[in-house]
């Protein structure tokens, strides 16, 4: 049965429908984010697990220089190891006729017959290699697609200095390569890095690995300790040149997807509350306004004998309809958005399959917190219903009291016209209300300013990395460290303007119980092409003795300047070094560890060695340079900065990085929502006054001034406050966006703040325009008939 109160409920909802929808939408967006992100976390984790499981991805990777095959038996005997697979891996270069630079590739062996025990591949096209057909290979699907190669095509590959032509018989994906980068590069680029799978005997022959392997893959029994197994494996492989066994969690591609999942998890916790807080704020304003204007009705209901609880329930129902409606819409939208995002992730991570699945608990959580927030917001208001006595219904309506309104100085009073006085007095009469409106708009400003600062932080990270920090045109990597003589050779190639050598050495850092597997970058004394810079773009001074740690690594190692670090060098003679930490630097990109080249060589007792060089080229002769370098046997690869930059940009625009666009959009929506609601409420409160002005003979424009003047004033007060809040918000947001690979520093410029301010002003203008339309359409007769 429809009670009169419920009928009032329906009518009230209809009356405030645009606001109800706006608030419901904000709630829906919050729940959408919650459902979508939790769903994606769940989906990515499950899919990854299933993918790893189906293709038997190893738990431990143990690279080694060259270990005889029988060592695998020893590895299998380590307690806790379930299965072992040895394989041959090698760096290779692919020569494509249409590409100037040789493209880097990794060659990986597969058993000559049957599938591998561990790290199987997912054959998408063609067939496997046939036993004995040594010129057959399988190519990573991502690269094949990027380069438009198909089974049947042939491929020229340089392995270990020897050039050979293979025929592609199949394409495959692998859980090992969600994210494939050439060694030394930061960002993945399908078109510039390939993986080729080759029959074991063919690949062993190419890399002098007959009867041997250079990577052991281990899977663990449930409950086995990772550290114990890697230590045991390192011990067994030590004499064969172990490069340090590591667990799946440190595997590059896995780490990449883990970061993505962690980012989603963090957003799933951090973003929805933001929406719900905004929704609570808006609900509070709308309900308090409604209760205030219906004081007499409430008094009347009470006079009839309705209890305070019954009347409160009536208003609470209204709030709950909005909250539940919003939450349900959010759940539906979240599932739809999650499905869409899951498909994007599938192609991004190249999963063979993906099923978007949300834990139903998330739905209840979404519903409950929506209801909870909305109820909390309205409880504050409902208190006033309990305090109201039925007698107010009997009293004539009292005009709002302006007795204590802002006392304008006499001189000022005379200058101001009456409409301006109305604006000023109203704004300052209820400081609390004005504070709420200012806070709301300031939050919008803060969101915009914060997001824009972070967005330009992304651009700056790119710009700084690729034009300030790295001023070279190309980076040449050698197959092994060479003497400085090779640098002279490079410098003599026509078209090369400048050469700057560097040495990068794979190491394991140890400090107390902490360790980190990475590398040391040895840079020349006064670098000009590639410089170590801190976040304020000042050169990081490199000391003659001691290393400079980037902040993330110092945190992992718990090391501070002055501490001594043990460095376990993973190449050449593999010495164990004790080196002091000279400084900890805030770096922009990656997590590097720097050292002076001469100091590094001194510690390694290998004077004059370099492992690569940065080049500055003459643009006109670029192609000749590439051709000359392509034919140098010691060159493992060359990467062009332009290519790296493009792939880096691509990486930042996909996955979590893409979230910044969504966040920016949301910031815009919220800003608008707050500003529009403030304007709507100001209008609702003043409808009668505005109608009176129109009756007296004020034109639409003159009438609008009274309302829009207020909106303008509030906006102007809110802008600087919002700008200050935005500063702190940007710090938090950039923290969230920063990863191991890149650190985002928000950028504060007057331009950024100007744009944010303009966005808020634009939102105000649009809101003002929408409200102005209402003023123009005001029904003079009925507005005057109703009391408030």
């Amino acid at each position, binding site marked *: 049965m429809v009670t009169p109160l419920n009928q009032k409920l329906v009518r009230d909802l209809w009356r405030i429908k645009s606001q109800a929808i706006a608030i419901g939408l904000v709630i829906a967006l919050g729940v959408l984010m919650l459902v979508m992100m939790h769903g994606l976390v769940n989906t990515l984790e499950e899919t990854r697990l299933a993918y790893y499981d189906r293709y038997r991805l190893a738990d431990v990777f143990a690279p080694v220089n060259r270990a005889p095959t029988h060592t695998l038996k020893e590895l299998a005997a380590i307690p806790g190891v379930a299965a072992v697979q040895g394989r041959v891996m090698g760096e290779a270069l692919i020569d494509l006729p249409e590409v100037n630079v040789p493209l880097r590739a990794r060659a990986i062996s597969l058993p000559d017959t049957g599938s591998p025990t561990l790290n199987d591949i997912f054959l998408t096209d063609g067939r496997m290699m046939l036993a004995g057909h040594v010129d057959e290979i399988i190519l990573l699907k991502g690269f094949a697609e990027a380069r438009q190669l198909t089974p049947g095509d042939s491929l020229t590959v340089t392995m270990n200095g020897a050039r050979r032509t293979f025929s592609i018989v199949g394409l495959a994906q692998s859980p090992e390569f969600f994210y494939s980068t050439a060694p030394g590069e930061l960002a993945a680029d399908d078109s510039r890095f390939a993986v080729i799978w080759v029959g074991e005997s063919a690949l062993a022959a190419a890399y002098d690995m007959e009867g041997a392997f250079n990577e052991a893959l281990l899977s663990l029994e449930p409950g086995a300790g990772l550290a114990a197994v890697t230590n045991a494996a390192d011990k067994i492989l030590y004499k064969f040149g172990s490069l340090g066994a590591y667990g799946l969690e440190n595997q590059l591609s896995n780490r990449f997807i883990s970061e993505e999942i962690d980012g989603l998890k963090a957003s799933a916790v951090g973003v929805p509350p933001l929406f719900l807080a905004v929704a609570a704020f808006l609900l509070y304003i709308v309900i308090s306004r409604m209760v205030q204007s219906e004081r007499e009705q409430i008094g009347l209901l009470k006079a009839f004998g309705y209890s305070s609880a019954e009347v409160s329930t009536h208003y609470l129902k209204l709030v709950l309809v909005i909250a539940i409606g919003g939450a349900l819409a959010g759940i539906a939208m979240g599932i739809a958005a999650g499905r869409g995002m899951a498909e994007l992730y599938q192609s991004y991570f190249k999963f063979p399959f993906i099923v978007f699945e949300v834990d139903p608990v998330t739905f209840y959580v979404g519903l409950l917190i929506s209801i909870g927030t909305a109820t909390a917001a309205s409880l504050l208001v409902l208190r006033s219903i309990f305090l109201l006595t039925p007698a107010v219904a009997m009293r004539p309506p009292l005009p709002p*009291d302006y007795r204590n309104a802002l006392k304008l100085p006499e001189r000022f009073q005379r200058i101001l*016209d009456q*409409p301006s*006085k109305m604006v000023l007095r109203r704004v300052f009469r209820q400081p609390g209300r004005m504070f709420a409106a200012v806070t709301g708009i300031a939050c919008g400003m803060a969101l915009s300013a914060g997001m824009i600062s972070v967005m330009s932080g992304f651009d700056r990270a790119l710009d700084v990395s690729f034009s300030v920090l790295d001023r070279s045109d190309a980076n040449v990597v050698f197959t092994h460290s060479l003497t400085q003589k090779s640098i002279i050779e490079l410098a003599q190639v026509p078209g090369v303007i400048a050469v700057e050598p560097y040495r990068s050495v794979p190491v394991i850092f140890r400090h107390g119980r902490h360790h980190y597997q990475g590398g040391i970058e040895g840079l020349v004394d006064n670098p000009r092409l590639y410089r170590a810079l801190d976040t304020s773009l000042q050169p990081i001074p490199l000391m003659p003795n001691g290393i400079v740690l980037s902040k993330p690594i110092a945190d992992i190692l718990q090391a501070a300047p002055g501490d001594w670090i043990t460095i376990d060098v993973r190449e050449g003679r593999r010495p164990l070094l004790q080196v002091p930490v000279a400084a900890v630097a805030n770096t922009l990109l990656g997590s590097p560890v720097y050292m002076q080249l001469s100091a590094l060589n001194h510690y390694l007792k290998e004077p004059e060695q370099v492992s690569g060089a940065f080049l500055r080229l003459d643009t006109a002769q670029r192609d000749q340079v590439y051709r000359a370098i392509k034919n140098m046997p010691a060159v493992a690869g060359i990467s062009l900065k332009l290519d790296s930059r493009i792939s880096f940009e691509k990486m930042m625009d996909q996955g979590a990085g893409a979230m910044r666009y969504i966040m920016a959009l949301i910031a815009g929506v919220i800003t608008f929502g707050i500003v529009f609601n403030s304007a709507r409420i100001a209008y609702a409160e003043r409808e009668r006054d505005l109608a*009176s002005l*129109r009756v*007296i*003979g*004020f034109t639409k424009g003159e009438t609008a001034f009274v309302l829009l003047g207020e909106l303008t004033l509030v906006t102007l007060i809110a802008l600087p406050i919002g700008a200050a809040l935005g500063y702190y918000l940007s710090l938090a947001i950039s923290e969230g966006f920063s990863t191991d690979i890149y650190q985002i520093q928000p950028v504060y410029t007057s331009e950024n703040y100007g744009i944010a301010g303009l966005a808020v002003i634009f939102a105000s203008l649009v809101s003002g325009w929408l409200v102005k339309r209402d003023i123009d359409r005001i029904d003079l007769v009925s507005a005057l008939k109703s009391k408030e």
Partner: protein
Amino acid sequence: MNGKLPNGDDIAAFRTRNLSKVYGEGAATVHALRGVSLEIPKGEIVVLLGPSGSGKSTLLNILGGLDHASSGEAYFQHQSLTEMTNAELTQYRRAHVGFVFQFYNLMPSLTAVENVELVREIADQPMRPEEALALVGLDKRLHHFPSQMSGGEQQRVAIARAIAKQPTVLFCDEPTGALDSTTGRAVLKVLQNVNETLGATILIVTHAAATAKMADRVIHFADGDIREVIVNTAKLSPEEIEW
């Protein structure tokens, strides 16, 4: 077109022919006015009487330029109100019309004198606000906000505001409806005063039949049309009226 006519003074303040107003449609249709034809001479005090819902306010709102008629014609002097656009109606109200409502409709954020100032800023030849407030007997309460005044005082500020622009016509929709009889009488006295000193035509809608005794003309309304028009030859002053 006003200026072209030689005998502007002889022209009625308002004239309507077959004026109708219909609200809603279908089953919910309400005929608020059913073809009203009337003539109101200049400078008179006219009282509209009739049961609630008989269409008095509707007529007042149309003549006051707040609402459009559904059909028929309405003239203010020579100007056809029924043909005016919204902007022209605004200009008409601005130039000629003063309104007084049952619930005063003052700006709560402005003091008495500032509420009167408000219309001065848009009028051609306004009175000084103090003068207007003196006319309604409120020269002592210039700087009070509406919340600091009684209902009668607020209504008198509303009248001062309406007359400050020296309107040609003054519309009062139940101006004493929210007041006690003594205060109501004071307000009516003010209206009579305004009529005498400014020569404004005044239309008063009221429930209180006794008010009719101060009118030049009494229009009885019922069911959306005029029942009867009585020209009052023995006008009384509000003080003399028995309530």
